[in-house]
């Protein structure tokens, strides 16, 4: 079974840390939704089969879409594909969009999971991030979603925010864990080049959190979520039993997915491609029946590098038998040879044919993954 990702590239305001593609003007929403429908049809045969296990509306801000637009897209999807009856169907939402009325409307659609971009419950943090909600609204949004009947709710948090102390992060975690959500994604703040917050860091306008504190925050995250019954399953992802994000997991299991909308990425098992970063160009090209995408065919080494990268980021780890079956004995030997020093340094474990990074390993996972790559 494959996945479908739909990128809704609109935001009312731009968050200061975000480098995803989105436009603030909402004038093209209707045209864009039409075009996504057209792209779905144009690329009907992209995926290896018609069975769909997950659908994910990401952004941007999908919760800016009125119900009718979701209906329109679902109609096209269900017309083209066989969506599994247990499919996981998620939309990302901004807390201030999640009014009871809006949620009530969406409940009648196939959605069964909502991912709420809370980031922080602290109003000063939220202001610095240029988020449009408050901490109180975030709490209310989760309550509203629960009351509307959503029983698979995920929230996003960011730690290591400017000026944030370890105790402040602890408070955030306590709040988050007390809300009765099923899933938490918690990201260390990344200063992406060119973003407003990156510029503020460059000009030393903000006080950043040092690596040691970031490390402590990460350990605290693992400790607190663990005690609250959450299981870590990826570097930044934690879920109650049975509540892992299946859609995101499919990225890490290298399951094919089709990405629709401007800047959306697709993967068919051996090649990756991504649509153009422009709403206008996307709409005009698709109207001419052309897919405005760049594509890369992955060489065997690149497929191996992909595999190493995504599997080592998960707690399921890298299965060496699978590695050998897909890439051959040479790659297996190469991988085991290179992981050795990290096993000796107690950053990785190797047992039952699976390489797993431990917490110390996750903290330096980029270094380890790079070391295992074939270039």
């Amino acid at each position, binding site marked *: 079974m494959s996945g479908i*990702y739909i990128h809704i590239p609109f935001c009312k305001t731009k968050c200061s840390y975000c480098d*995803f593609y989105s436009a603030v003007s909402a004038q093209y929403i209707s045209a864009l939704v039409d075009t996504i429908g057209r792209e779905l049809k144009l690329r009907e045969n992209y995926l290896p089969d018609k069975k769909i296990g997950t659908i994910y509306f990401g952004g941007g801000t999908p919760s800016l879409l009125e119900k009718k637009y979701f209906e329109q897209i679902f109609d096209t999807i269900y017309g083209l594909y066989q969506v599994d009856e247990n499919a996981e169907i998620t939309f990302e939402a901004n807390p201030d969009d999640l009014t009871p009325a809006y949620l009530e409307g969406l409940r009648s659609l196939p959605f069964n999971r909502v991912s709420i971009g809370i980031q922080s419950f602290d109003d000063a943090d939220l202001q610095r991030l240029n988020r449009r909600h408050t901490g109180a609204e975030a709490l209310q949004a989760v309550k509203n979603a629960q009351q509307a009947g959503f029983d698979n709710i995920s929230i996003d948090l960011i730690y290591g925010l400017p000026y944030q102390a370890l105790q402040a992060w602890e408070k955030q975690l306590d709040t988050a864990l007390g809300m009765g959500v099923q899933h938490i994604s918690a*990201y*260390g*703040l*990344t200063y992406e080049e060119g973003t407003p917050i990156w510029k503020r860091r460059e000009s030393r306008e903000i006080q950043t959190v040092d*690596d*040691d504190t*970031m*490390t402590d925050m990460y350990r605290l995250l693992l400790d607190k979520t663990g005690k609250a019954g959450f299981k870590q399953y990826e*570097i*930044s992802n934690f879920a109650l039993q049975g509540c892992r994000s299946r859609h*995101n997991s499919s*990225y*890490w299991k290298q399951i094919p*997915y089709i*990405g629709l909308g401007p*800047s*959306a*990425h*697709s*993967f068919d098992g051996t090649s*990756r491609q*991504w649509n153009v970063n422009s709403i206008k160009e996307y709409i005009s090209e698709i109207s001419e029946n052309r897919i405005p995408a760049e594509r*890369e065919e992955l060489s065997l080494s*690149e497929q191996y*590098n*992909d595999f190493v*990268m*995504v599997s080592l*980021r998960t707690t399921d780890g890298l299965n060496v038998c699978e590695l050998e079956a897909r890439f051959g004995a040479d790659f297996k030997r190469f991988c085991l040879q290179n992981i050795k*020093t*990290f096993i000796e*340094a107690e*950053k990785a474990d190797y047992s039952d044919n699976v390489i797993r990074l431990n917490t110390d390993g*996750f*903290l*330096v*996972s*980029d*270094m380890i*993954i*790079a*070391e295992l*790559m074939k*270039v």
Partner: protein
Amino acid sequence: MKNIRNFCIIAHIDHGKSTLADRLLEYTKTLAEKDIQAQVLDNMDLERERGITIKSHAIQMNYNLHGEEYTLNLIDTPGHVDFSYEVSRSIAACEGALLIIDATQGIQAQTISNLYMAIEHDLEIIPVMNKMDMDNAMPEEVEDQIIDLLGCKPADIIRASGKTGMGVEEILHAIVERIPAPKGDPDAPLQCLIFDSVFNPFRGIIAYFKIVNGTMCKGDLVKFIATGKEYDADELGILKLDMVPKQCLSAGNVGYIISGIKTSKEVKVGDTITHVKRPATEAIDGFEEVKPMVFAGVYPIDTEDFEDLRAAIEKLQLNDASLTFEPESSVALGFGFRCGFLGMLHMEIVQERLDREFDMNVITTVPNVSYKVYTKKDELLEVHNPSGLPDIMAIDRIEEPYIRASIITKTDYIGQIMTLCLGKRGELIKQEYISGNRMELIFDMPLGEIVFDFYDKLKSISKGYASFDYHMNGYRPSKLIKLDILLNAEPVDALSSLIHVDNAVSLGRRMCEKLKELIPRQQFDIAIQAAIGAKIIARETIKAVRKDVTAKCYGGDISRKRKLLEKQKKGKKRMKQIGSVEVPQKAFLAVLKLD
């Protein structure tokens, strides 16, 4: 012969020599405008990028003045101190020189030393003030400088602009009218001065020469006096944009000879060509064996590439006779070569050409000059490498090469430049005003101090304005010791250097600091130590990486992130594994860029 004019151009880097030369070629229709690929005389990419002519070339122009047809041979000269011997041979082949001074910058050290060389060879000097089209030109001030220097009249100075073509005709007139025709006897025994050679993959070595006396014809049996080798003159001719074969060439003219020579070592700049049958009784004065002055280890990053590196260096040597090499090995770096260079620029050029023309990624170690080590048994050893130093107990004394350096600068920077040169064990010989606020300083300095971050410092102190030139000035006894660098307690032989005892502690400390900057953090702590013998004189620690993790890795992030990490891995592959520590290439040259 009375209608031949042989001249060269003396100019500082960036003073517009090449552009002005292009204008001359254009004006004489030696090259059509469509052929102009900016600066024809510099035909290696590297030369064009650096804006200097590394190896000299020659080109012939025809020019008609008052109904007479003249042959003008422009002999180009390399523009850097490392190549001063080659410059002297080019100058020796000329009767006149254009002295090109940038009207926005004035006279520089290198210009002066080349000018003196030209005056020594009795060349007629035609001063040209270039870049007159620039807003910041200071013609009056620069004119005063030129008059002070040459004792000429203001009217003798031609105002020109290579950019607009201003003054080009006047320059051509001056070349014909002021520069004397070459002297020489076409019927005398043959004497040709070799001033340059190039390697051509199809024709072998092509030697460029000026006929001082006699006549040479195609098919003649000739002899190169210094090497004693004999050849048939398979082809000879003159140099236009391409080579133009001729049956014979006579005294006064400039040309090329192809005689089946395969390696550049057989053609020595400054050598004399004569006939075998009717040889000249003596060679032309001034020939010297060029000896490399700076030595460094050149190692392949990947030890498997050793043979490829050898092949690449051999090829480079085909058209660069001043490059020497012999195999050596290092505990840290494996097998490589000890290469000899004329100077630091030459070394950089070789390294870049290996990279660009042969795709050879190399590590160049800390350069050394050539030391004379006298043992207690009174043997003389030439030491080019710290590891070649005999046991301290066996050494009677060590002598190191000295240079006489000329620095020209604005007076504003004198204090700092003095401090720099004295800190480099320089001894002030002379200081004098050239004009207004410009001074020339003459220092005697150890060459070994110049190879350590001297140019860069001089440049930054003087905001790029001080100019520098030197020539070799004998050997002097010196107190030298070997400074070792240890990474995680393992000595790294490729980072050892021979250094004056007074500078050892400070250099050791700065090397440790610099290495700390250059070696990336790794998964464990790294200790960097500097030691003299068993005594540690400095230490730094590189802390292990504690956090290196990507927060998000979803559908859209995977490609980008993978490429980023692949790049990181590629970067690591370019590093050298020393014990457990990965050391980037640039760290091996760390001492050259100490702050």
